[in-house]
């Protein structure tokens, strides 16, 4: 008879065991905030389609203090999500070569972050120019 009695340790609360896992869970959780903001924009588009009254009601809702606070929180979550997303990006890409040299992971992350920042600035500039 075998004396073996392998012991399996439970996985309860695994994501609290290491700060690395906590950051991972925050990255995954902030993805929900990205989805939530898409819903806010979708609601705006639907209101626009329904006519001027609905559109103005949606705009008025956005101007309430609760909405502004929510948007600030969503902004913070979105920035963290973008950062963590580009941080993991080198892991998801095939090996890249430029001019015969392998592109470093940190370069990929940096290029991604700069591209995201530029896209944001361009969007803000366009919105500022087109404001009524």
């Amino acid at each position, binding site marked *: 008879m075998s004396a073996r*009695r*392998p012991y*399996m340790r439970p996985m309860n609360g*695994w994501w609290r065991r290491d700060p690395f*896992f906590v950051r991972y869970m925050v990255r995954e959780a902030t993805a929900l905030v990205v989805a939530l903001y898409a819903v806010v924009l979708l609601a705006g588009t639907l209101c626009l389609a329904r006519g001027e009254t609905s559109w103005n009601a949606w705009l008025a809702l956005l101007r309430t203090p609760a909405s502004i606070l929510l948007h600030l929180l969503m902004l913070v979550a979105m920035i963290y999500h973008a950062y963590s997303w580009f941080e993991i990006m*080198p*892991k998801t890409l*095939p090996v890249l070569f430029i001019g015969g040299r392998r592109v470093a992971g940190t370069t990929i992350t940096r290029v991604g972050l700069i591209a995201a920042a530029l896209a944001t600035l361009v969007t803000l500039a366009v919105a500022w120019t087109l404001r009524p």
Partner: protein
Amino acid sequence: MVESVSALERIIEIEVLRYRPEQEAAPVAQSYRVPFTDDMSVLQGLQYIKDHLDGTLSFRWSCRMAICGSCGMMINGKPQLSCQTFLREFYPGKLRIEALAHFPIERDLVVGVDDFIDKLASAKPWLIPREPRSLEQGEYLQTPRQLEQYEQFSSCINCLLCYAACPQYGLDSKFTGPGVLALLHRYNADSRDHGREQRMPLVNSLEGVWNCTAVGYCSEVCPKGVDPANAVNQNKVNSARDYFLRFLRPRAEGK
């Protein structure tokens, strides 16, 4: 001189999670006070315990120089090779040592690795040439760029730290896991190899790459600079391509 004498008198507390199946229903912590010098690894601390304090303590080790992959364990909660982690890093704090996470504990710091060994074979981790070659045909030629596609993945020493770092493996051990998938990629990415079609069913399967949620800790803990997270995620692209290309290019019969 005075300094070296006082250095010898330093004593660090090492708490080991012990499990003796004939004696305990569940693992229990046991503390030891171990005198140490600056050049002593955690493994040497454990050897001191076994030689001088408690001969019943069980742990695996062999080479003492980070190449055999036997002495991986959780050191203060992080998967590390005990031979290349030093006691001085933790002093004056204490040290908590536990068997590698996500594996069944057989005894003290010894885990059962049968699951990993079975998975290793399933990845066919060897070169499968396109056709048999004779010695007269000479060696394979490879460019530096072709070498770079797989070289880092060939540094794996099967130490299992990446498995202890992977919560997806911990939650569901059916997942093939980072180490084996990195080795699988090491051969698929090798220009001399032609076994890709034989390995893709494992990549595509429910136990394959899609179980990975890109936590990325596997690459962080690897003592040999392998990037398993990259291997796994590159193969999500390959798996998706494989899925869509079958409509354009039907596979040969029986594959």
